[in-house]
């Protein structure tokens, strides 16, 4: 699995929306493989950071490099799964074929295997938008993984899904990580973060408040804001 996107360096990333600095000078280096979970209260800037990493948002200031690549040059090595899966108005199989036309022509069996990996082989010929929310997200993940990305970004991909779908997605994410794909996942779910994270980035108020190995973060968070968050206190 290619690792040319490591380390991921984010320097002084700033983004303003209206009068508000939604990203207020984010400095972050992710140099370990495995799964990095970004946590933090609503409005902390987690999703914006992920979108900047993927190139969906251009920051006002700052720099992101993935290995020696800029964001724009690393596009074909990245894949992203959004909170709300957007699927084409076609069957599940056609959605995969659209995402990977070369594979669809040369090795169509791989598309079926991709569906099998998310337990959707029996739904191959159903319109994708008729699938349940969990099935749609699993299909979106299968689609994202078709291109064998070096970096997989997940933005609250399991929010409000049924436990079975969460389990399938988490298993697949772990398997993908074990194969060398760097995974960065935004999640509010502490249980999920404990299950998946190798390291945690905690964001608050548009900045990185803490970055620690997962065990250390959950055992003894260094910052008061992270402590309060883990204790379930409401952070405004």
């Amino acid at each position, binding site marked *: 699995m290619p690792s040319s996107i490591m380390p991921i360096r984010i320097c002084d990333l700033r983004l303003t929306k209206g009068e508000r600095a939604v990203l207020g000078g984010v400095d972050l280096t992710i140099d370990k493989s495995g799964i990095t979970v970004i946590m933090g209260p609503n409005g902390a800037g987690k999703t914006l950071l992920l979108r900047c990493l*993927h*190139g*969906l948002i251009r920051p006002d200031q700052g720099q992101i490099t993935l290995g020696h690549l800029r964001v724009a040059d690393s*596009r*074909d090595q*990245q*894949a*992203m799964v*959004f909170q709300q899966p*957007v699927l*084409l*108005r*076609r069957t599940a199989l056609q959605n995969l074929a*659209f*995402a990977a036309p070369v594979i669809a022509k040369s090795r169509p069996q791989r598309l079926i295997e991709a569906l099998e990996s998310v337990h959707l082989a029996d739904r191959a010929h159903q*319109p*994708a*938008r*008729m699938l349940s929310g969990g099935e749609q997200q699993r299909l979106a993940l299968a*689609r*994202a993984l078709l291109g064998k990305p070096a970096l997989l970004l997940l933005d609250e991909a399991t929010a409000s899904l049924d436990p079975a779908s969460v389990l399938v997605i988490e298993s697949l994410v772990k398997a993908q990580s074990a194969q060398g794909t760097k995974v960065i996942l935004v999640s509010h779910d502490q249980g999920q973060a404990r299950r998946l994270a190798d390291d945690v980035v905690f964001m608050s108020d548009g900045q990185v408040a803490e970055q620690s190995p997962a065990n250390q973060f959950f055992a003894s968070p260094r910052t008061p804001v992270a402590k309060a968050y883990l204790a379930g206190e409401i952070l405004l």
Partner: protein
Amino acid sequence: MNALAEAFRLIITLDPDLFEILWLSIRVSLIALVIAAVIGLPLGTWLAITRFPGRKFCILLLNALMGMPPVVVGLIVYLLLSRSGPLGWLGLLYTPSAMIIAQVVLITPIIAALSNQVIENLHQEYSDTFYSMGITGRRAVVAYLVDARYALTTCILAGFGRAIAEVGAVIIVGGNIDHVTRVMTTAIALETSKGNLTLALALGTVLLTLSLLVNALVIGVREYAAERQYA
């Protein structure tokens, strides 16, 4: 009542005069529809997915042109095609071609504006995902057109409904010449003014049936798409 019975007799016996008018109406409207769709669909799509200064004005103009009075369109096309007009040398005035041109001018903005809205909505929904998947340019446009196929079909049918029922423009540029440019709407206007209600009623019945069929098709396509989550 006698006129109505006679009108149905004309329809049932496949009266040649009536079906000549019907055939010309459908032919003119279908050709206009194809041309308008070929222009309007890409135009609407292009305006939906590109960003340039003046784009909003173009969309505003397109929406305004949807409500253009047919007689004004007829007048403009007449001035263009009249012997002293810039296109007078083509000799198209008072021919079915002139009627097709007038209908194209009338329904292209309808198809373009409606398809623009459809594709714009789809673009908003798909843009992040397409960016993430590296889908750009022609592939994206084709995907929009394919995925919006049912909604676009209703846009096209709306254009056909407008074309087939149009009278103001085609009577000006076609002249309502018997066996040459007489279509259903112009024939109804003429026969009514002459007091010949039989043919007018027969044509009116056919026109109404066609209009109902088109609307039923629009509803059918929408329901089909919604039921299968393709909408």
